[in-house]
C-alpha cells in the first residue's frame, strides 16, 4: 500500500491553492478548446502548450492534466451534438450519441458521457496508481537494448497493427522518424538533415509539427471540401438529467467500458479506437433494448465514452513509467514534460516523486472538477459550438500561428508550420494516419539513443538485441504485430475471392 502513501503525498501537492487554480484553468481551457469541432485532445494540448511555458514545472504539468481530461470531455460533447468526432476515439460515441441528440435526448447523452467519463477516469487513474510502482520496479532492470525493443513494439503497434493499411501507417511512422533526425546529434555534435539552416539545428519543435498537421492540415482539408458537406448542430432540448431508467442502463456499460479501455490503453498498443468499438459492440450484444440501437441507445454512449476515458488514463501508464507515448496526445504530454527537461520513466518516480504523484493526484481532482463543472456549464459549451465555421477556423489558424511564433519568433518556424500544414492536408486526403508521425518524431530520438547505447556496450555487435531475453521476446512480439495485419488482410482478400 506504498502507492497510497505516495498518492497521499501527491495530494498534498495537488491541493495547494495555486495548483488547484492551475487544474481549474486547465480543465476550463481544455474543455473550451476541445469542444470546438475538428479539435481533438492532441491538438488541444499542442495549442495550449505555449500558455504553460512560463509556469513552474509542477503547476504546468498539473494544468496539463486538466487540459488533457478537459479536452477529452470537450471532444465527446462535440461528437454527441454535431456528429463530427474530433478524433477516431470519439467515433463510437458519436454513433448513438448523435442519434440521442436528434431524438431530443441530448441532455441525458451528455450526462451519461460525463458521469461515465468520471467513473472510468477515476477507476483507471486508480489502476495507474496501483500499477505504476510495479512497472517502475520492472523497468529499472531494463537495459538499453530492452528499452529499444520496447519502443520498436510501440512503433509497430501504433503505426501498422491497428490501422487500415500497414503500409500507409508505416510510411507515416518513418516520416516522423525522419523528422526526428533533424538537428544536432547530441552524442557526436554533428548536424543531420539541417542543410545549414540555423533554426533546424535545435530539432523540429513537436508543437509546430502537431499544430501544423492537425490545425493547419485540418483547416485546409475542411476548406477544400466545404462544398461537399455541412455540419449540423443539434440543440440540447429537454431535461439535462438522467432518469432512474437511464442510470440503470448506464452503470454496467460504464464499468465494462472501463475494463476494455484501461488494459488496452496501458499496454503499449496504441489508440483508443479499439476499446471504444469493442465496448460499442459488446453493449449492442448485451443490451436489453436492442430496438434502441440505431435510434439512440444510452448504452451505446455510456460504454464507449467510459472506454475512451479509461484508455486515456491507461496510456499514462507507459508514458509515466517507461517514457513511452502510444498516442498523439501522450506524445504531446511527453513534449510538455521535455520542455522542463523532465524525462518520464522509472527514474522520474525516484527523482521527482512529488511531481509524478502530484500529477496523478491532480488527475483525480481534474476528473472531479469536470464532473461538477461540465453539466452546469453545458449551455456555455454549446454556445462555443455555434461559432460560425469561417470564424472558427480563422480563429484556430490565428491562434496556431501566434502560438508557434510565441514559442520561437522566427519566420522559418512559420514556414515549417505551413509545410507541415500542407503535409497534414495531403495525409488526410490520401488517408495516411497522423498520430504515427508525431509518435515517431518524439520517440525516434529516444529509441536512437537507446540503440546506440546498446551498440556501444556490445562494441557494435547488433546481435546484442537478440541476446537479452527481454529484448528478444519484445522484438518477436513486434515482428508478429508487424506481420499479422498483412496475413489477416491476405485472409480477407482470400475470402473476397471465394465470394
Amino acid at each position, binding site marked *: 500500500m506504498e502507492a497510497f502513501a505516495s498518492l497521499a503525498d501527491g495530494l498534498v501537492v495537488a491541493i495547494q491553492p495555486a495548483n488547484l487554480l492551475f487544474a481549474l484553468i486547465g480543465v476550463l481551457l481544455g474543455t473550451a478548446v476541445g469542444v470546438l469541432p475538428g479539435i481533438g485532445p492532441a491538438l488541444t494540448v499542442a495549442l495550449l502548450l505555449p500558455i504553460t511555458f512560463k509556469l513552474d514545472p509542477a503547476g504546468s504539468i498539473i494544468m496539463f492534466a486538466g487540459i488533457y481530461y478537459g479536452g477529452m470531455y470537450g471532444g465527446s460533447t462535440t461528437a454527441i451534438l454535431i456528429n463530427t468526432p474530433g478524433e477516431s476515439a470519439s467515433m463510437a460515441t458519436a454513433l448513438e450519441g448523435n442519434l440521442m441528440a436528434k431524438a431530443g435526448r441530448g441532455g441525458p447523452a451528455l450526462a451519461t458521457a460525463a458521469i461515465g467519463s468520471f467513473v472510468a477516469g477515476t477507476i483507471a487513474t486508480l489502476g495507474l496508481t496501483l500499477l505504476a510502482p510495479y512497472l517502475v520496479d520492472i523497468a529499472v532492470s531494463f537495459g538499453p537494448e530492452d528499452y529499444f525493443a520496447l519502443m520498436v513494439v510501440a512503433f509497430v503497434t501504433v503505426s501498422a497493427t491497428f490501422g487500415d493499411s500497414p503500409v500507409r501507417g508505416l510510411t507515416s511512422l518513418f516520416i516522423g522518424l525522419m523528422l526526428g533526425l533533424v538537428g544536432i546529434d547530441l552524442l557526436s555534435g554533428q548536424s543531420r538533415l539541417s542543410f545549414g539552416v540555423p533554426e533546424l539545428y535545435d530539432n523540429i519543435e513537436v508543437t509546430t509539427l502537431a499544430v501544423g498537421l492537425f490545425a493547419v492540415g485540418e483547416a485546409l482539408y475542411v476548406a*477544400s471540401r466545404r462544398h461537399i458537406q455541412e455540419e449540423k448542430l443539434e440543440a440540447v432540448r429537454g431535461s439535462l438529467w438522467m432518469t432512474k431508467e437511464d442510470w440503470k442502463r448506464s452503470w454496467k456499460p460504464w464499468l465494462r467500458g472501463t475494463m476494455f479501455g484501461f488494459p488496452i490503453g496501458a499496454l503499449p498498443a496504441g489508440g483508443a479506437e479499439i476499446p471504444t468499438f469493442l465496448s460499442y459492440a459488446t453493449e449492442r450484444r448485451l443490451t436489453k433494448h436492442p430496438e434502441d440501437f440505431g435510434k439512440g441507445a444510452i448504452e451505446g454512449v455510456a460504454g464507449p465514452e467510459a472506454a475512451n476515458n479509461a484508455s486515456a488514463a491507461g496510456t499514462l501508464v507507459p508514458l509515466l513509467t517507461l517514457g513511452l507515448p502510444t498516442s498523439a496526445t501522450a506524445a504531446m504530454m511527453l513534449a510538455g514534460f521535455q520542455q522542463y527537461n523532465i524525462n518520464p520513466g522509472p527514474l522520474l518516480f525516484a527523482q521527482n516523486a512529488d511531481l509524478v504523484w502530484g500529477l496523478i493526484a491532480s488527475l483525480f481532482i481534474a476528473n472531479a472538477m469536470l464532473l461538477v463543472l461540465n453539466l452546469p456549464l453545458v449551455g456555455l459549451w454549446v454556445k462555443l459550438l455555434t461559432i460560425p465555421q469561417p470564424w472558427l477556423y480563422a480563429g484556430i489558424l490565428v491562434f496556431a500561428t501566434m502560438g508557434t511564433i510565441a514559442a520561437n519568433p522566427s519566420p522559418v518556424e512559420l514556414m515549417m508550420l505551413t509545410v507541415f500544414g500542407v503535409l497534414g492536408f495531403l495525409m488526410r486526403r490520401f488517408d495516411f494516419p497522423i498520430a504515427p508521425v508525431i509518435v515517431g518524431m518524439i520517440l525516434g530520438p529516444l529509441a536512437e539513443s537507446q540503440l546506440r547505447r546498446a551498440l556501444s556496450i556490445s562494441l557494435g555487435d547488433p546481435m546484442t538485441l537478440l541476446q537479452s531475453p527481454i529484448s528478444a521476446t519484445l522484438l518477436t512480439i513486434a515482428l508478429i504485430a508487424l506481420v499479422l495485419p498483412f496475413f489477416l488482410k491476405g485472409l480477407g482478400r482470400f475470402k473476397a475471392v471465394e465470394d
Partner: protein
Amino acid sequence: MATSPQRRVDVAGLVIAVILLVLAAVVWWDMSKLQILSPYDLGPKVMPIIVSGCLTLLAIGNAIGALRGDLPARDSLDWKPIILILGALACLIVLIRFGGGFMIGTALLFAATSTAFGRRAFVTDFIIGAVIALIVYVLFAKLLTLSLPAGPLERLF
C-alpha cells in the same frame, strides 16, 4: 497477374512513392557526410541508415499499392480556399521577415481563412482579426511575457 478492369493505376500514388524515394535518397546523402567517432559502432549513422532503407521499402510498397489502384477513394477538391489560406500564411511570413509585425498579417490570415470558408465580408473580418490579434498579443506578451515579433503597430502598446 489478373487485375480487375475497374482498378486503374493511381498516378498520385506513384508520385507519393517517388517523393518517398527522394526523401530516402536525401537521408542517405546526408548520412554519408557524417563522421564516425567511435571505431566500434556506426554512431550517428545507424538511425539514418535504418530510416533511409525503410523509406525505400515503403516507396516500393506504396508504388505497388498505386499500380494496383489500392488507394482509398477521394472526393473532388476545391483548390481556391487552399490557395487563399496558403497565400495568407505566406503574407504573414513575409511581413514578419521584413519587420512588419504580426498583427497586420494575422488580421489578414483571419480574413482570408474566413473568406476561404465562404464568408463574404472581408473588411469586417479583417477588423475582427485585428482585434483578436490585439487580445492575444496582450495576453501572450504582457500576461505570459512571451515575445512576439513586433512591428510599427505592436510598438504602440
